Every structure is written in structure tokens, then in C-alpha cells.
């Protein structure tokens, strides 16, 4: 009798083992992976809202290949180590395409899991150059320009418009921030004329940044260029002003959005950042903004439109390929032109977006305004 129960238990358990991936589903499983909690959650949630809205629109129009899209969520708190777990869980739950992750570091650590499972990964926010340019990630696409494009824009703006001679490059030691500053350094060195007086990394979340601020002051830098996110940037900006250090401050899309002006308040005035091109004249952009305001009572966040475009691109590629199989979809990704809220976009042979770029913005009266 005992043996019988043992056999039964083993039998049931092994059935459960086989059952999960085996079910033929009548939905297309798409996951949104990224920071949904933690201090970088505003970025993840802005992208998620875009994806959610796109899923609603797609399902209203009959879904992908006649099947409804089922959205799964994965929260990686923007930490590379958590991203691996999230990716493993999504793959074992049978996900077919993934929008995410938000941060380059998270993708770099989770990439192998998606690649091995033949899953297309598309991000509206990860800008690290290596993700596309090395060619190591054939399953990765993005709807945002890469850091190289941003670094070119930032350095050219610093030299030609701000006319600075001495810059301090400060980063948060992360894949995104440090990568960005290394690109900027290379650009400055190529251009000449601009001297890099300081190149340093700081610890994110440190108790106090006074020492680095004093170091910036001593270096006589006219511009501090920051590679990283808004929460640490805000601390440094505040301390610079409190210590009466008169330098300009500039960052990339990591500090673009409402978060920085909200956090640093009046200290944020005059901060420069690069961010995705202003496409607010696009009718689809306007309609989505209105919908977002009605639904959440606020303006769309940093990665809302890129997130929306990610989901649109996946749907378009699946329709074009006539299947959700990896090889067919990947081939289709290069052929599609998506009528997105950012205008018509496509993808180049590396997986980078074609048809979108960055502009420079400056905080004026508590909001980022485009600089002409």
C-alpha cells in the first residue's frame, strides 16, 4: 500500500512537471520585465503603462494572429541579479516574447536565458551600446537610440553650444552610467579642445557625496557630465549648489523626465539632459497622451511611448511572419515599418531603431524644455 502511494505521488509530481509547458495555449504570452518596484520603478512603470495600453489596443483589434495577447509581469527591481531569476521564471512559465528589461545591466545578466530559450527581447529603455553593436545578442531589439548616439549629441552640445573647455565626467559605476561616460570620454578625446579634468565613479546610495563635490570644485570643471540615474544625480546637484560650486550639470536619458525636477526642486533649474526626440505633434502621440491622462491623471512617463512602440513592433513582426516562432519573427523584425507614436520606425541589421533620435533638454521652471 505504501509503495502504491509512493508511486502515485511520483506519478502525479512528474505529470505536473510535464504539464506546464505542454499546454497548447490560445493566447500569445508576452511578458513585461523591468523595475516595477524599488527606486527606479518610475522608469519601469512608465514603460509598463505603454505596454499595457498597446496590449489593450492590439486585443481590441483582434490580437496577434487572431489570438489574444496575455501580459505577464516580471519585477527585477532594476537589479542584474534579480533579473536572472525573473527571466528564468518567465521562460519556465512559457513566455513567447518579452518587452524589457528596463536597464542595460539587467539585460546583460539575463540575456543568455532568453537567447537559449529563443525568445525575442525588445526594450524601450536599455541604451548600452554593447547590446546591439557587438552582435552577441541576435534576439535583442530596442526602440530607443543607443548610448553612442547620445554621447555624440551630448559632447557636441557641450563643446559647441555650452562652449566649455573643462569637463568632469562622473558616473555611478553601473553598465549604463559608466558605459555612457566612457563613450563621452572617447568623443571628447576625438574632438580635442575640451579637457577632461576628472573621470570618477561614485557609489550609488552613498550616505554623502560631499568629498566628490569638493573634488569637482577643485578641478575647476565648467561642466559636470553625469552617467547614471536621477536619484544620485539629484544628491550631487543639490550638494554642488549648496557648496556654491558654479558648474553646469548635464546627464543623459537616465535623468530625463519629471523625476529629477520633482526630487531636486529648485536645485534642478538649469540642468541639461538628453532625451528621446519630442514627437508631441504626432496625432497618435497626442491621442495616447490624452488616454494616459484620463486613465492615470498625469502625463506619460519617460519610457511610455518607447514601451508602447515595443509592443506594437512585436505584434507587427508576428503578423508579418505569420507565426510567433523565433526565426520567422526575427527575420520579420528587420522588414517591418511600424506606425508608432514616435513616427514611422524600423530596425537596422543590429537591432537598433531607425527613425528616432535624441534632443537636448534643459530644466526651466521645474520642467524639461527642449533647447534649440
Amino acid at each position, binding site marked *: 500500500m505504501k509503495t502504491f502511494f509512493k508511486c502515485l505521488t511520483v506519478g502525479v509530481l512528474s505529470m505536473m512537471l510535464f504539464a506546464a509547458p505542454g499546454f497548447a495555449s490560445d493566447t500569445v504570452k508576452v511578458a513585461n520585465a523591468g523595475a516595477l518596484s524599488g*527606486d527606479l520603478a518610475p522608469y519601469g512603470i512608465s514603460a509598463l503603462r505603454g505596454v499595457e495600453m498597446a496590449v489593450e489596443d492590439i486585443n481590441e483589434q483582434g490580437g496577434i494572429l487572431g489570438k489574444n495577447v496575455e501580459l505577464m509581469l516580471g519585477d527585477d527591481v532594476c537589479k542584474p541579479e534579480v533579473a536572472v531569476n525573473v527571466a528564468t521564471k518567465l521562460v519556465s512559465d512559457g513566455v513567447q516574447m518579452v518587452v524589457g528589461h528596463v536597464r542595460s545591466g539587467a539585460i546583460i545578466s539575463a540575456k543568455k536565458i532568453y537567447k537559449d530559450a529563443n525568445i525575442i527581447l525588445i526594450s524601450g529603455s536599455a541604451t548600452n551600446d554593447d547590446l546591439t553593436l557587438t552582435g552577441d545578442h541576435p534576439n535583442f531589439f530596442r526602440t530607443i537610440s543607443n548610448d553612442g548616439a547620445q554621447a555624440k549629441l551630448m559632447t557636441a552640445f557641450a563643446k559647441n553650444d555650452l562652449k566649455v573647455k573643462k569637463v568632469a565626467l562622473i558616473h555611478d559605476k553601473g553598465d549604463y552610467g559608466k558605459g555612457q561616460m566612457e563613450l563621452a570620454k572617447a568623443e571628447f578625446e576625438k574632438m580635442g579642445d575640451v579637457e577632461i579634468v576628472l573621470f570618477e565613479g561614485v557609489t550609488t546610495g552613498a550616505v*554623502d557625496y*560631499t568629498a566628490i563635490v569638493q573634488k569637482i570644485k577643485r578641478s575647476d570643471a565648467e561642466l559636470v557630465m553625469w552617467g547614471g540615474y536621477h536619484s544620485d544625480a539629484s544628491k550631487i546637484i*543639490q550638494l554642488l549648489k549648496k557648496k556654491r*560650486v558654479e558648474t553646469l550639470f548635464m546627464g543623459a536619458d537616465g535623468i530625463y523626465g519629471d523625476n529629477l525636477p520633482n526630487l*531636486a526642486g529648485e536645485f534642478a533649474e538649469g540642468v541639461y539632459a538628453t532625451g528621446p526626440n519630442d514627437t508631441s505633434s504626432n496625432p497618435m502621440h497626442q491621442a495616447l497622451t490624452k488616454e494616459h491622462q484620463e486613465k492615470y491623471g498625469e502625463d506619460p512617463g519617460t519610457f511610455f511611448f518607447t514601451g508602447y512602440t515595443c509592443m506594437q513592433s512585436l505584434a507587427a513582426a508576428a503578423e508579418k511572419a505569420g507565426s510567433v516562432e523565433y526565426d520567422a519573427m526575427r527575420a520579420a523584425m528587420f522588414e517591418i515599418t511600424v506606425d508608432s507614436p514616435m513616427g514611422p520606425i524600423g530596425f537596422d541589421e543590429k537591432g537598433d531603431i531607425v527613425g528616432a533620435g535624441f534632443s537636448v533638454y534643459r530644466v526651466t521652471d521645474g520642467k524639461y524644455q527642449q533647447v534649440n
Partner: protein
Amino acid sequence: MRWISILLGLAVTGIIGFFAVRELLMDPMYFFELFLGGLTRGSIYALIALGYTMVYGIIQLINFAHGEIYMIGAMTALIVATVLGMWGWNTAVIVILAFVFAIVYSCAYGFTVEKIAYKPLRNAPRLSALISAIGMSLFLQNYVMLAQTPDFLPFHSLIPDFQFWEPFAHIITSVEITIIITTVIVMILLGLLIKFTRIGKAMRATAQDKVMAALLGINVNNVISATFVVGSATAAIGGVLIACHVGQINFYIGFLAGLKAFIAAVLGGIGSIPGAVLGSLVLGISESFFTGYFWSEYEDVFAFTILVVILIFRPSGILGRHDAQKV
């Protein structure tokens, strides 16, 4: 071994001394600014480290939830200041009330944490209490995250920029000078409390021998509670001050600050109050100089290296007691 350590010590001191004098002569202003920045940072560490060291002195427990008490202090001050600010109260009143509320709330949390998480484990193996402390720390972090927000919140400095200080503001801000002065005052008050009051005497007695103190009529439970309350109060003051300095807080600020303060306490000799203060200042100032003269990338590496080096040569910390384990 003794000779080697003395020689090594002399060599290291000599190199550092030579370097310090050279930098001092080359750019005395910068040296001085870094020193003051380090002093500010060390003061904050000291306010937190006191709680670690006092609790360890009495019940040999490393209270890992202490960093969270500091964070709760800052959060409470933020909430009180925001609400009172909306009602349009006078700034001075807001500052005082924010500090009072922060201290009271943190003390209440410190007291409750001890009652819930440590008292039932008083006679359990030390490891159990340690795990309980880590659990409490995670609980409080996540509780604040869920009850408040995971985002960073702007913290408008409660301490205004003093007009008369303006000529010196580029060297040391009003907030920083307030931090240093407040820390000195708190240290003096704490010293008086421990040296001259009944409860201070009882604390010292309990730290020396819990059983004997109980036999002589000291209510050990009350003394332990009092220790947690005093430690929480200084942590709350530290929390509010650093929030004024940095200008933003979230649920996670207690983790790194608590860790650094813990290192400082161990560095100075855990269980010793002057040791905690000295350890904090050494850590804060050396971190500041390291960032200023070398690379800020390795600031934390450097902090931990100091810890390791000092513990190799003085296992009980700079001012730690050498007495043998009681049986």
C-alpha cells in the same frame, strides 16, 4: 610578531604622515575642506554607531535593525514637516516639532523592536537573536516601502542657510556646521547621562555583569529598554540631520548608513562609547581624504580595508576592552 606589527605600523603612519603634510602644504584649503567634510560624515556615523555599541555593550547583540530606526526618524521628520508646512506653521516651530516627533517615533520603534524581536530570545543562542535582528531590519524596510513609497522623496532642509554664515558657505554649509555642533552636544549629554545619572550607573553595571546587577536590585529589562531608547534617539537625530544635508530620502537609506556606522563601531571597539565616536571620525575623515586624493570608486573598498587592517593588529578595535570572555 610584535616587532613586525610595530614596524609596519610606523611605516604606514610615516607614509601617510608624509603624504598628509605634503598635501597640506600644497593646497591647505582643499585639505581643510576635505577634513570638514569627513568630520560631518563621521559625526553622522557616530550618532548611529552609538546605538550599535551601547546595545552590544549590554546584551552582546548586533542590532541590525538600527539603520532602519535611523531611516524611520528621517521619514517621520519629513511627514511632520510636510504636514505642518501645509498648515502654514512657523519654521522654527516646525523644526523643533519635526525633531521631537522623529525622536519620539524612533524611540517607540526601538523600544518595540526590542520587546518583540530580542526579549523573547534573550536566553537563546546569540545566532538566533542575530537572525531575528536581520529579519526585523528587512521587515521595517519593506514596511516603510509599502506604507510610504519606493521612490526617493525630496526632503527640504529644515535648517535654513544662515545669513551670517554666507562668506564661509563654500567651505562648509550651515547644515554641516549644525551637524557637527549637534553631534558634539549629543555626545556631551550622553556622556553626562552615563556618568552621573542613576540610569547611567545601572547601564554600566548591567554591561559589566547582568546577573550581578539583577541580584543587586537593578531591573535589567528596564535598563535594556532604556538603552534601546537612547540609541534610537541619537539615530533619529542623525537621520534628520543627514536628510537635511543630502536633501532626499527613501526606505533604503538606513542600510548603507547602518553598515558604515557598524564598521565604525567595530573599528573603535564595539561596546565602547568613546570608541564608537573615535571609530566614526576615523572612518568618515579617512573616507573623505581617500575620495579627495585618490579615487571615489574605491571608497567602500578603502573603508573595509581599514577595518580589516585594524582588526588584524587590534582584534578588539582601537579602544576595545581586552577582558576575557566571562564564564
